[in-house]
């Protein structure tokens, strides 16, 4: 039986970090590398949070929040992923599949979060339409009311989303990890290949227009490999 009350701190954290994606303050505390780590720390294992946060950050490199475009919501999703990864590693079962399963849950949560943001924007539009006469009259209280309504709705969106994702995901995730049949080395390699592929495509799209981008990337790669070799 899942204790909803025990999940509440994670839900509230998801709401808070979900706010950062668009509404307030866009300081990038919602980026996976941050949100995953904080959630992992809240669950008692910051390193587990950082590991999945870094993996999701690699994936998130390709989804930048350009204006009205639709993109995954990484704040709440990374909280769910970070917390879940920490919890699965704590179960005492061989946690070989923990990273894979938690990453899958976080990616699905990011997709659902993106959809919920579209709903929120439509709701904000409906409120703005209803209050248009007052806005056109220059009512300061209406301007403030719209901002506060948007903030509150966004916070609730992130909180509810995180709670639903974690409530639905914990039991199947534990089951999946308990039944995991892959070798640990293979699990790590699979998520690394997937994350690396998405990240490589993303940085190509972002930086390919930079003069001598290929040379810069290859030079960096050589440097990176030397550091890996020496470490």
């Amino acid at each position, binding site marked *: 039986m899942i204790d909803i009350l025990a999940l509440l701190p994670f839900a509230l954290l998801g709401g808070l970090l979900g706010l950062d994606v668009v509404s307030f303050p866009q300081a990038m505390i919602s980026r996976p590398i941050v949100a995953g780590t904080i959630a992992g720390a809240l669950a008692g294992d910051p390193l587990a949070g950082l590991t999945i946060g870094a993996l999701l950050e690699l994936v998130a490199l390709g989804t930048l929040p350009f204006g009205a475009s639709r993109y995954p919501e990484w704040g709440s999703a990374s909280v769910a992923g970070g917390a879940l990864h920490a919890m699965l590693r704590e179960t005492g079962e061989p946690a*070989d599949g923990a990273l894979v399963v938690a990453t899958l849950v976080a990616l699905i949560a990011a997709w659902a979060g993106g959809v919920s943001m579209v709903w929120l924007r439509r709701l904000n539009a409906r409120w703005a339409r209803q209050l248009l006469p007052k806005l056109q009259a220059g009512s300061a209280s209406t301007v403030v009311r719209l901002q506060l309504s948007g903030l509150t709705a966004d916070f609730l969106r992130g909180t509810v989303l995180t709670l639903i994702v974690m409530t639905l995901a914990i039991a199947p995730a534990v089951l999946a990890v308990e039944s995991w049949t892959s070798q640990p080395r293979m699990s790590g390699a699979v998520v690394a290949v997937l994350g690396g592929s998405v990240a490589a495509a993303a940085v190509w799209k972002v930086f390919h227009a930079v003069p001598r981008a290929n040379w810069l990337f290859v030079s960096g790669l050589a440097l990176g490999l030397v550091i890996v070799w020496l470490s």
Partner: protein
Amino acid sequence: MTQQLTPVFTDSPPKASGGSPFSRGTWISMYLRLLAIQASWNYEILLGNGVGFCVEPALRALPGGTEGEAYHAALARQSHYFNAHPYLAAVAVGALARAELDGEPPPRIERFRTALCGPLGSLGDRLVWAAWLPACSLIGLASFGLGASPMLTLIIFLVLYNAGHLSLRAWGLHVGATRGLKVATALGAPWLRRGPEWIGRVGALLSGVAIPLALYRVAGSTSTVMPLTFILVLLLAVAGGAALARLPARLEGWRLAIVGLGIYVLAMAVR
């Protein structure tokens, strides 16, 4: 994507020029409100209400105060449709508040407001979303890959990113407030025009360093990684990246990752 940045109103100068017309308290209030400029972002008026929200503290100084006709007219003007990058919207907020306080004719303010949208959007997107944010992410990932502790990784990423973020907002509000309708000239500053390219070069180099380092640590989180296994992982990631980059934009990598991981989890967990 790139828009020509030229002064939009050169027929007559603003009535006032020089320092900021706002008191310290007003400036701080506007700056803090800028952090929530997108709180009511929607598909109808986009940032419009947020701009009204941020400009409002300055408008209290208009003749008649908050009960005056000038205040309500100005707030109504500033609360309709507006679109820009959220950080560089600070430029618009400062300049529009200044124009209202200077008593510029409303049609001129409206035209100026409309003209600001495009440049502030494209400049911000190129500088922040397509350069500064990925570069800071890569530095965070490199720190993680080099073995930094969770706390240190967070501090490095957040301090670096927000040094740029908060400074950009402060610069925008300052330059908007001090230059008013002449703010377009400030948007042609070399660091704004060339910044994305400079940061992009660093980003391209960093991506080569950060991605393998981060992958090595991620792959090593489940077991010890052998050198040959890692080389294979890296080669597959580069090949996968090259394939993904050629796919239509709609087939985004993160969506395909859901499918790939879903299949793998089913295969490994369902016996």
